[in-house]
């Protein structure tokens, strides 16, 4: 996202669409389903044009029935298909959480290994557009809590473009979170950027003084904070978790081992968050490397409000990250 310049190259939305197109072309078991993914083109326009290209059998509009169509995706995966199920937003995904937790994540183990579920679920997450408390939450940690599924949070154009193929190749359920504020992010997609591994976090900006650890829609804010900190003479490293389950503890330990200070930035509520898990990992694995307590910058513990100034105050902002880094360094 550091290369983000509007109007050139591609957008996050187009990169995701291209990944879907490639998946639909290369494997006839793949199909896309969800509310308004077909004729409407997806509520955020990700699947625009795919119905025309692949037909209604493989780009399926569903009724409003999250539990039914996610459950149907699980069933279709069991029976040999490779469904990609889109849920409009993470708030609505709670209607399907039962299917995801009690079926998708559980069947393999409960059946003694007989029933793998090769399903991909995509959904939008996050706040920042004054959509209030039923459209704005970051519930990634609900999913990252669950053994048996993989949870991904592509934050760059490259990841948006290349995360789907390995997700579909995974024999187990994969949940992909797309932050709503990223869809219009634009830039050049390097032609050499190949498929990405799903297991490793990425250092988006190397540095030596402090690790800013984040994911998804907070990555641009962390990078902006790193720029500001550089002006203050603090060389911040930015770590993009990319995979929220399983967490890449190695990259975390290496980064903190280098910088000895960490700020974890997470748009979710602080209590029980991914940030809480990351902080615990650092405490467990890098305790003696730390020169300062781990700082967390999270959303305020409030349902995200509509009013602009309240929403801004509720969410982690670049200035909050800069301030937290100063607290850790000074």
């Amino acid at each position, binding site marked *: 996202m550091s290369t983000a310049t509007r109007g050139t190259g591609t957008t996050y939305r187009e990169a995701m669409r291209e990944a879907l197109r490639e998946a639909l072309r290369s494997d006839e078991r793949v199909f896309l389903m969800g*509310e*308004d993914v077909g*004729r*409407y*083109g997806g*509520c955020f326009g990700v699947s625009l044009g795919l119905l025309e290209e692949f037909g209604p059998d493989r780009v399926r*509009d569903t*009724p*409003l*029935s*999250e*539990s*039914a169509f996610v459950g149907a995706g699980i069933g279709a995966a069991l029976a040999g298909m490779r469904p990609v199920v889109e849920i409009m937003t993470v*708030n*609505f995904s709670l*209607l399907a959480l039962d299917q995801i937790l009690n079926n998708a994540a559980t069947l393999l183990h409960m059946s003694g290994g007989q029933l793998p579920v090769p399903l991909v679920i995509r959904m939008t997450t996050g706040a920042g*557009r*004054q*959509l*209030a*408390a*039923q*459209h704005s939450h970051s519930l990634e940690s609900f999913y990252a809590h669950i053994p048996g599924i993989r949870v991904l949070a592509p934050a760059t154009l490259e990841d948006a473009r290349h995360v789907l193929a390995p997700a579909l190749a995974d024999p187990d359920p994969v949940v992909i979170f797309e932050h709503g504020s990223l869809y219009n992010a634009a830039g050049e997609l390097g032609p050499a950027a190949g498929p990405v591994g799903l297991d490793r976090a990425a250092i988006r900006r190397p540095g030596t003084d402090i690790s800013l650890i984040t994911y998804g829609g907070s990555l641009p804010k962390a990078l902006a904070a790193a720029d500001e900190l550089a002006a203050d003479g603090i060389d911040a490293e930015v770590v993009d978790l990319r995979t929220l389950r399983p967490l890449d503890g190695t990259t975390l330990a290496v980064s903190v081992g280098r910088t000895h200070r960490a700020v974890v930035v997470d748009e979710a*509520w*602080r*209590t029980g968050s991914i940030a809480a898990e990351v902080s615990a990992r650092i405490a467990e694995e890098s305790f003696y490397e730390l020169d300062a307590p781990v*700082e*967390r*910058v999270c959303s*305020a*513990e*409030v*349902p995200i*409000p*509509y*009013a*602009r*100034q*309240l929403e801004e*105050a*509720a969410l982690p902002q670049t200035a*909050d990250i800069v*301030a*937290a880094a100063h*607290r850790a360094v000074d």
Partner: protein
Amino acid sequence: MSASRPTTRPRKEPSAAKPGRKAATTRAGAGPPPAGRPEAGHRTDLLEAMLRIRRFEERCVELYSAARIRGFVHLYIGEEAVAVGVSSALEPEDAVVSTYREHGHALARGLTPEAVMAEMHGKATGCSGGRGGSMHLFDASRRFYGGSAIVAGGLPLAAGLALADRMRGLPGVTCCFFGDGAFAEGEFHETANLAALWNLPLLLVCENNLYAMGTALAREHAQTDLAMRAASYGMPAWAVDGMDVEAVEQAARRAVGGIRAGAGPHFLELRTYRFRAHSMYDPDRYRDKAEIAQWKSQDPIARLTERLRGDGELDDEELARTEQRLADEIDHAVTAAERAPEEPVEDLLRHVTSAPSGEVSRP
């Protein structure tokens, strides 16, 4: 379905209504409202109530373009007869549960344009203190349990309100508005069953505007006769011309009358149409221009205006006076909203729990 509930089939005449047909074939609920002839001026009140919603939302469009109103805004333009007709059959002790397309429900319930406009401006004087915005209007004093943006999410809540009123021996009827899309959700079907099973005082008002966002009714439902399906839960269910405010009111009065008399939940399918896109974000690529035009020709406001003129109950002067009064009311609401204070950022954590927990949630 038990034999003790005889009126559980959809009434033949109303449910035969086809969307887009003229009033003659779609007037629901034979017979006059229980109170006999409505008092003089009642029909012009209905017109004014519909016009208030229309003009209010037209102003919202301007304000949204000027970025004074943000977030998701779902317009009700074209569907005003539903909110106005149904609300006019309700009493203050009744409860209302709404959706995210709720400006009409709120105004028809008596929330002031001022309170709603301030909310959409995110101001402290708004009916939800600026925290809800267009999709989350509330007013406990009017038993308006407000806007849910989770499709069908209001339905179970409505069953609970109805249950509590019954358990407490209160006379209220709970009215829940929801769309044709919501009818596909499990929460609708679970609620319908529960309400019928427990004989709850619940009025289920399905606003069938033929689309759930970009998905047309026939691509959403295997059986598109929604009233018939609702009847299968064991409740009276009627399809009504939702572009005819008097037909809506009449049907709602009959249903509410039945509910108050102890006959349990009733279902109304109001056949209607939104003239605008799903939300201000929606490019509306999925609907046919001719279809939109055909429905606009049944504008509920134009239809009632014509009828009143024909019956000699309305003249141009009176209409102009009404329009002026509404314009003033809305001007005032906008000015007040613009001048109103913002909720201070220091109060961000108010109302998260009833008692301050003292928990510090920001670094």
